[in-house]
Each structure stands twice: as structure tokens, then as C-alpha cells.
């Protein structure tokens, strides 16, 4: 064995000394498709341009009636018009403000109720057994169908919209909180038991912090739902909000206006979502790396 090995090592040594000849390197490049190499901003701009181009083509060639689909230029003009109106504080601003209030109240209500119910269901066996089945049953219903009820109970003011918005947003928060409270593993539970922790200490110092990532997932879904709830409420229950402006514009066949109002609404939705995400980064700071990883 050793006899055959020694010449081999000597061989290696001599060839290492005679390294003057160029080394054959084995560097190779991983194949990445050209499309995947484009930076995000440019990719997004590209898709946007294609979209607007198709849109422009379809409308300027007269393939679609302008009542159904206005040209991009008309839409842009109206977006600017609405923007100016809002900035100048003219009639659209109070409408937007009403919708914002509905969203804020609705979300606050959903967080308060959703979190409390979530803790009840996630922390107590009774809640799990007695309350969860009802929550699941209601959650499977199309919740906007309740809108007429809320109008009948609470009238045509902001209250019925807040109620519908909160109603829709509550469920994901309940589910997130309850599921999050179950995320503590056996070791963590045993550890707290050996330390002689009370139920309250276990909840506050262990289960709730461990539940935070899932609570925030529920909050994000709720933030989307609260917007949908407020606008649906306005469509079905009147009032003076942004949804009402959309309804009026649509009934006047003012399609560019509908489009630009939707754009401003989605900005509002994005702002709420961003706010929740910002809070999550702050509160669940230890999750930072995983959050960043999942976005890239």
C-alpha cells in the first residue's frame, strides 16, 4: 500500500514545482436566462410599458368602446385631475377622509376583537371547543352578504361601513392569533413549566411573542380585507365616501374617473399594508432576516 502511495505523492510534488505551464482552470458560469438577469425596476417598467402599449393599441384602434375602456392618456389626465382636486382640498378630499376614517376605525375594531377572540380561542380549551366551530362556520360565508344587515342595523352613515370592514378583517386576525399561540413547541412549554411560570407569565413572556409573526400575517390579510369591507359598504349603503364617488362616476359612464379613483384607493390600501409591515419589522425585530429572505 505505502509503496504505491509514495511515488504518487512525489509525482504530485514534482508537478507542483513545475507549475510554470499555465494551469487549466475549471471556472464555469452558471447559466441564468437573459430575462432573469434584468434588474427588478427595469423588469417592472418593461411589463408596465407592454401593458400600457397594449391598452393604448386596443383603445386607439377602436377595438373597445371608450366607455368601456378609456385611453391611457385620458386616464392619466383624470388621475392628475383627481390628484389636484385632493391636494387642493376640494370635494373629493372629504370623501377620501371619510373612507380613511372607516378604514382606521374598522381596522382598530378588527384588531381589538380579533386579538381578544384569538387569545380566547388559542389559549383556552373552552374557546377552542365552543367558539372556534362558530368562527369557522361564519368565516366560510361570503361576508359581504351581511352588508344589508349592517345598513339595516346601523343606518347609512359611517357606522355600517366600519362594521362591515371590521367584520371582514376580524377573522384572519383571530386565526393568526389562535394559530400563533399554538406555535410554541414542547420544549418551550416544558421550560416554562420547570421555571414555575404562571399561565399569565407563559402567555405574555412566551406564547404571545412566539405568536407575533403569525399575528402579523393575520393583520396583513385583515388590512386588505378592511379596505374591501369599507368600499363594499359604501357601494351598498351609500354615504359620502370614496366608494360613493366611484359609484356615481360609474353610473355617469365616466370610466376614466372610476380608474383614477381606484388608483387612489389602492394607494390607501398600500399605505395601510406598508404601515403594518413597518410595525412588524419594529415589533418582531428578530424575524428580520427571514422576512428579508422571503422577499428575495
Amino acid at each position, binding site marked *: 500500500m505505502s509503496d504505491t502511495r509514495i511515488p504518487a505523492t512525489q509525482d504530485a510534488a514534482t508537478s507542483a514545482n513545475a507549475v510554470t505551464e499555465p494551469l487549466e482552470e475549471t471556472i464555469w458560469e452558471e447559466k441564468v436566462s437573459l430575462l432573469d438577469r434584468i434588474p427588478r425596476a427595469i423588469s417592472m417598467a418593461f411589463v408596465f410599458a407592454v401593458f400600457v402599449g397594449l391598452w393604448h393599441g386596443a383603445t386607439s384602434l377602436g377595438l373597445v368602446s371608450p366607455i368601456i375602456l378609456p385611453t391611457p392618456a385620458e386616464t392619466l389626465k383624470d388621475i392628475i385631475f383627481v390628484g389636484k382636486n385632493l391636494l387642493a382640498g376640494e370635494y373629493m378630499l372629504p370623501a377620501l377622509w371619510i373612507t380613511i376614517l372607516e378604514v382606521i376605525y374598522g381596522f382598530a375594531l378588527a384588531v381589538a376583537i380579533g386579538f381578544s377572540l384569538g387569545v380566547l380561542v388559542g389559549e383556552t380549551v373552552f374557546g377552542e371547543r365552543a367558539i372556534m366551530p362558530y368562527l369557522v362556520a361564519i368565516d366560510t360565508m361570503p361576508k359581504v352578504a351581511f352588508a344589508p344587515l349592517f345598513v339595516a342595523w346601523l343606518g347609512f352613515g359611517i357606522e355600517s361601513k366600519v362594521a362591515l370592514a371590521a367584520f371582514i378583517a376580524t377573522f384572519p386576525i383571530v386565526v393568526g392569533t389562535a394559530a400563533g399561540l399554538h406555535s410554541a413547541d414542547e420544549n418551550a412549554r416544558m421550560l416554562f413549566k420547570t421555571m*414555575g*411560570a404562571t399561565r399569565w407569565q407563559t402567555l405574555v*413572556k412566551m406564547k404571545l*411573542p412566539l405568536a407575533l409573526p403569525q399575528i402579523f400575517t393575520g393583520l396583513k390579510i385583515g388590512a386588505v380585507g378592511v379596505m374591501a369591507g369599507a368600499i363594499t359598504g359604501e357601494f351598498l349603503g351609500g354615504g359620502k365616501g370614496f366608494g360613493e364617488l366611484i359609484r356615481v362616476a360609474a353610473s355617469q359612464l365616466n370610466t376614466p374617473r372610476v380608474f383614477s379613483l381606484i388608483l387612489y384607493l389602492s394607494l390607501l390600501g398600500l399605505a395601510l399594508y406598508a404601515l403594518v409591515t413597518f410595525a412588524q419589522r419594529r415589533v418582531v425585530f*428578530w424575524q428580520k432576516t427571514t422576512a428579508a429572505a422571503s422577499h428575495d
Partner: protein
Amino acid sequence: MSSVVATPSSESIAADTAVYSLNRVGKTYARNQVVALEDVSLTLKKGSFSSVIGSSGCGKSTLLKIMAGLIPPTTGRVELQGKPVVGPRRDIGMMFQQATLFPWRTTIQNIVLPIEIRDGRDAANKAKERAHELLDVVGLNGFADVYPNELSGGMAQRASICRMLITEPAVLLLDEPFSALDELSRDMMNMELQRICSEQNATAFLVTHSIAEAVILSDDIYVMKPRPGRLAEVVNVDLPRPRTLDMITTPKFGSIVDYIRGLLDKGESL
């Protein structure tokens, strides 16, 4: 059940007092009627290091949980320092396979957590001085204010040793504490554990499925047989202390390992 009597050593008479005693302990899980333990009796002497070894699923963790007061036994009696164990107790420290540090707390905040739970925040703040000393002991000074996701597996396990020691428990119950670590860190941690136990004169009870680990650390090794889990034999290890990793290559070490392996194989064929 045969028992090899411990050789009288230079230890004082006080060291011979029983800290823990289990008398005919049995456990049947009600959920699935699994008989996890049957008729387990053992006595741990103060300052001694004992291990329990056995195949996976033979009831080692169950035994430890009963000793820790985490679950009640179905039959039998558990006593710690003369008082029956009827729930978690201050004088028991426990460690698991996972370090289970909480990511929103810095290392030192994790370590003083047991104090915070038992005696409140002020006491926890006062205990930080002691926590720093413990961090020194396990070679983690400089990592007090770091969050756990910046610690390696071995470092996290060291921190969890500190958390266990901060309350100065009379007994340490260790459930495969280092089995998630690579072999090199594991050897190092075992030597560290030995040092800490002798410095603090702690009574330790270690669950492991590594024969070598059991032999290098223990005075007594309880060999368990599965289905139902019961003690087959107590093997006394009379290698001198402090133990070193070199001892692994000695014939005596080898013969003890072989003996235990033989017992375990017999258990398998039952």
C-alpha cells in the same frame, strides 16, 4: 436487577446522602395506553453524576419528566431532598436537546429568565452579575448582549446551561443536551459539563444514547430496556476523576463500553 456498589471514595459522608429517590415508579400514558415505564427505582447521591442509557423510545424522557415534576407518575413515589415531587420545583434545573433560547431576549436576558419568572424583574436585574460569572464559566463572555440568532448551536447550548444554573438547582436533569451538536463540540461540552458539575458540586442525571458519553461523564450508568421501559442494570464507572478525553482509548474505558453495549443488545433481543 443487579447493582454494582459504588466504591467508597474520598468523598465525605455527606456526599453519600440521597438527593433523589424513586421508588417503584411506573407510567402509562392514558392517551394511547403505552406503558412507558415500569417499576423504576433509583437513588441519586449528592454530587454524583448518573446517566440513563437506552434505545430510542424506551422511556428515558418520560423518566426525566417525572423526576422534574412535569408529568405525574401513574404508580410509585418520587422524592427530592426528602420531599415528594408533585410539580415543578425550584431546586430542579433542566436542559433539553434544543437550547430553546427566546429570540427577542439577549443572551443574558435569556439566562436570567428563570429569576424573572420566579422573583420578578428587579431580582432578574440583580441576577445579571451572577449571569456574567456563569457566562465566564462556559466561555461566553462578550456574548451577553447578543441575540440568540447570532449564536452557534454550541454557544446556544452553553447559554442554556447558564440559564439552568442561574437558580442554583440541587439537581440537573439533562435530556440529551448535546445530541444536536457535532461530535467535536459535543466532546468539548461534555468536558465543560463535568467541570461545572464538580465545581458546583451538582447532582446530575443525564439522558443519552451515546455509550461513550455516558461512560466518560458518569459515576453510575442506568441501562434501560424498552417496552415497557425498566432498568436492567446499574453499571458503576470507576475511572478516576477528572475524566479526560484521552481515557476513551484506555482498555478499561473500552471494556465498560463493551459491557454496556452487550447489555443493550440483550435488551434489543427481548
